[in-house]
C-alpha cells in the first residue's frame, strides 16, 4: 500500500505537468468553459478508429469555438476531454468516472457497445447527457436511461434492412447465416434472421465460428449441403476475408452479404479475387450523398491530413446536436438542455437526425456496398422508416449480379 501511495503521488505529479499545458488560460468574466467528454480506444487494435472518432469531435469543437457561441449571456469556450477506454468494459467505467469527476457538460462516446453500455450507467447517475456515435447494440438505449442517445442506426435497424435487402433486392430464398459469437456479430445475425423470416425467406443453416478462427471449411461444407442462395456473415474482416476465400474454394456460388464489419479495404485484401460481388452494409448515407458530406470530408482532410476512417462524421454531428440543444435551452447545464436534446431535429452531415423516445435514431438510413474490381462501390441506400422503405437507386444498382 505504501508503494502504491508513492507511485500514485509521482503519477499525480506527472498528470499535473501534462495536463497543465492543456488547461485553457484564465477565463474572462464574460466567458464560460464547457467541457465535452469523449472516450474511445485510443490504443490497441481499434486505435485508428478511436482516433478518427476523436478527430471528428475535435473538429466540431474547434469550429464552435471559432464561431463564437453565446449561451446564457456568456461567450462559450468548449474544451475537449478525451480518454482512452481501450475497448475494455472495465476500463470504460473507470474512464467514465474520471470524466464525471471532471464535471463534463456532455459526453460523446464510447466507440464500442461493450464499453458504452456499462459506462452509460455512470453518466446517467451523474446526470450527464451521452451521445454515442457508433455503439450499435440495441441494449444501450433500452436501459431506460433518459440521458442516452446515439447518432447511428442500431443493430436492430441495420439487421432489419439487411434482411429486407437480402430477400427483396437480392431475391434470395434459401439463406444461410454464420456469426462470430461476439456481441456485434451475434446481435446483427439474430436481427437479420428475424427480418429474413418476416420477409418470407427460409433459414437453411445457422452456423457459428469465433473471432479468432481461420478455418471455416467444416461449417461451410455443412452449409454447402443445404444449397443456400445467399450466405450472411455477422462478424469482422479478419474472419470475413479468409471465410470468403474458402466459400469460393469449396465451390459455393451463393451470394455473400454482411454488415459494416466487412466494409473495409482489409476484407478485399484478405479475400483476394474471391471478394468480387460481395455485399456489405454501413449505417448512414454515403458521404458523397450527405448534405454537407463532401465539405466535411475536405475539412477533415485539410485539418488532419488523412482520410476519414469510419465514424468521424457521426461524432461531428453528435457534438453539433449537443451544442444546438444548449443553444435552444440557453443553458449549458445538463439538466436544462437535456429536454431540448430529446426534441432534436438537426440536418447534419450524416442525415437528418431525430431521436425517438428511447434515444435511437428515428429514421436511420443504411447504405449497401458491393465489391467491384477490387473496390467497394455504392449499391443502394435503404431508409429504416418502416413500411415506406424509400429506395434511393443509384446507377450501379442497374447492374444486378449475374
Amino acid at each position, binding site marked *: 500500500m505504501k508503494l502504491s501511495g508513492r507511485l500514485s503521488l509521482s503519477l499525480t505529479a506527472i498528470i499535473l505537468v501534462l495536463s497543465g499545458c492543456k488547461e485553457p488560460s484564465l477565463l474572462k468574466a464574460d466567458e464560460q468553459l464547457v467541457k465535452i467528454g469523449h472516450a474511445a480506444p485510443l490504443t490497441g487494435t481499434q486505435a485508428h478508429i478511436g482516433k478518427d472518432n476523436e478527430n471528428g469531435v475535435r473538429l466540431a469543437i474547434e469550429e464552435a469555438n471559432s464561431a463564437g457561441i453565446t449561451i446564457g449571456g456568456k461567450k462559450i469556450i468548449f474544451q475537449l476531454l478525451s480518454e482512452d477506454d481501450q475497448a475494455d*468494459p472495465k476500463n470504460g467505467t473507470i474512464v467514465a468516472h474520471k470524466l464525471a469527476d471532471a464535471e463534463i457538460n456532455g459526453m460523446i462516446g464510447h466507440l464500442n457497445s461493450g464499453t458504452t453500455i456499462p459506462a452509460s450507467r455512470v453518466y446517467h447517475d451523474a446526470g450527464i447527457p451521452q451521445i454515442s456515435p457508433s455503439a450499435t447494440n440495441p441494449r444501450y438505449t433500452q436501459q431506460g436511461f433518459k440521458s442516452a442517445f446515439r447518432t447511428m442506426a442500431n443493430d436492430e435497424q441495420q439487421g432489419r434492412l439487411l434482411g429486407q435487402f437480402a430477400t427483396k433486392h437480392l431475391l434470395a430464398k434459401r439463406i444461410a447465416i454464420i456469426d462470430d459469437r461476439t456481441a456485434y456479430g451475434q446481435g446483427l445475425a439474430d436481427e437479420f434472421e428475424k427480418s429474413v423470416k418476416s420477409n418470407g425467406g427460409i433459414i437453411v443453416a445457422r452456423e457459428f465460428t469465433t473471432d479468432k478462427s481461420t478455418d471455416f471449411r467444416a461449417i461451410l461444407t455443412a452449409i454447402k449441403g443445404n444449397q443456400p442462395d445467399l450466405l450472411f456473415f455477422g462478424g469482422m474482416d479478419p474472419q470475413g476475408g479468409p471465410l470468403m476465400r474458402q466459400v469460393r474454394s469449396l465451390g459455393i456460388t451463393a451470394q455473400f452479404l454482411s454488415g459494416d464489419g466487412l466494409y473495409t479495404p482489409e476484407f478485399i485484401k484478405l479475400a483476394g479475387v474471391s471478394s468480387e460481388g460481395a455485399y456489405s452494409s454501413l449505417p448512414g448515407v454515403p458521404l458523397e450523398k450527405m448534405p454537407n458530406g463532401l465539405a466535411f470530408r475536405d475539412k477533415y482532410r485539410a485539418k488532419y491530413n488523412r482520410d476519414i476512417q469510419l465514424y468521424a462524421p457521426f461524432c461531428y454531428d453528435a457534438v453539433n446536436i449537443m451544442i444546438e440543444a444548449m443553444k435552444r435551452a440557453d443553458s449549458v447545464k445538463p439538466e436544462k438542455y437535456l429536454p431540448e436534446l430529446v426534441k432534436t431535429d438537426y440536418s447534419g452531415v450524416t442525415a437528418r437526425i431525430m431521436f425517438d423516445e428511447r434515444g435511437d435514431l428515428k429514421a436511420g438510413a443504411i447504405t449497401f456496398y458491393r465489391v467491384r474490381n477490387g473496390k467497394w462501390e455504392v449499391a443502394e441506400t435503404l431508409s429504416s422508416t418502416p413500411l415506406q422503405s424509400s429506395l434511393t437507386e443509384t446507377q450501379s444498382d442497374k447492374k444486378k449480379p449475374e
Partner: protein
Amino acid sequence: MNDLLTHWRKFKREPYAVWLGFALIGFALVLLPFATDAAMGRSWVRILDHTLLYIMLALGLNIVVGFAGLLDLGYVAFFAVGAYLYALLASPQFGLHLPFWTLLPLGALVACMFGVLLGAPTLRLRGDYLAIVTLGFGEIIRIFLNNLNAPVNITNGPQGLNMIDPIMLGDFSFSRTQQILGITFSSVHNYYYLFLALTLLIIFISIRLENSRIGRAWVAIREDEVAAQAMGINTRNVKLLAFAMGASFGGVSGGLFAGFQGFVSPESFHLTESIMVLCMVVLGGMGHIPGVILGAVLLSVLPEALRYIGPLEEALFGRVIVDPSDLRLLILGLAMVLIMLLRPAGLWPSPVQRREFAHHDKS
C-alpha cells in the same frame, strides 16, 4: 545497519508493536479512499476497488499455486462462475432478485463445486498436464457462457447480462451516495469498504489455512508428493480442498465484480485474465500472502501507470513509438521470465520459499 535490523526484528516481535502496526495500517486503509479521492480523483478510487477484487483473486489462486503447487491456468473460470451466478440471480434475465447476503455464500459454494468438478478427475495428472487441462477448462467455461443463449436463453450469450442489481445490504444500497455521520460516501467509497472487509476476511482465512494442518499438508505435497503420501496425507482430498478453497475465493470476487459493474459479458473472462492473476502470484511471491498482495497491487496499477507512457514518449521522441497498451502484456511476460530466472521466490518471498529455492539452486 545490521544492528538496526536486529533491533527492528526484536521490536517487531513485541505484542504492542504488532498491535500498533495493525492500528496504523487499519487507519491508513480507512482513510485511503478519501485521500485518493482528494488527490487523484474518483476514478482512482474505482481503481482501488478493482485492486481489492484482484487481491482476492490472487489470494485464491495463491492457495492452489502457491500453497499446493498446482499450476492452474483456468482460474478465471471460477471468477466467471461467481460473476454469472450473481448476474443470473439478481437481474431482469430471469426476473430473480435474490439478496446479496444469500448470493455471496452461494457464489462461493457454486464456484467451490466447480472447483471440485474440475479437480476430481484431473488432480492425479502431473503438473504440466494439469496446467493444460485447467486452461482448457477455463476456455470451455467461457465458450459455454458465450453460447448458452440458444436453444434456451440462459446466459444471454455474447451480449452479456445487463442491469444487474447493485449490492444491497438491507436498505443500504452500495451504488448510491450515502450520508453517514455527516460524511458523504459515494458509490465507489461504499464498495471500497465492502471489498476491503471481504479482502481482510480472505486474508485472515488464508493466514489461518497456511498455519493449519491442511496448510502444512499442502506445502508437503508441493515439496514432494510421494513423501507426503508416505506420511499419511490423503493427497487427493487435500489437493481437492485446495482447488475448492481457491475456487470459492474466485467465486466471491466474481459476485462482487458483477454487482459492482452492473454488467457482465464473456469477454471479461478471457485467458489473459487468468494469466494476469497468475502473474500477480508469481511476481509477488508464490505462497507468501503479503507478497501476493504486493503483486496484485503492482499489476492492477500497471495499466494506469502505462497511460502516462504515451504522452511521455511524445514528449521525449515527438511521437508515440510503441503503443503503451501494447507494453502491458509484454511487461507481464518479461516479468514472469525474469522473476523465474533471477528471483524465483518472487519480489517479496516468504522465508521458507526463499530457503527452498536456494536449496534447489545448489543441488
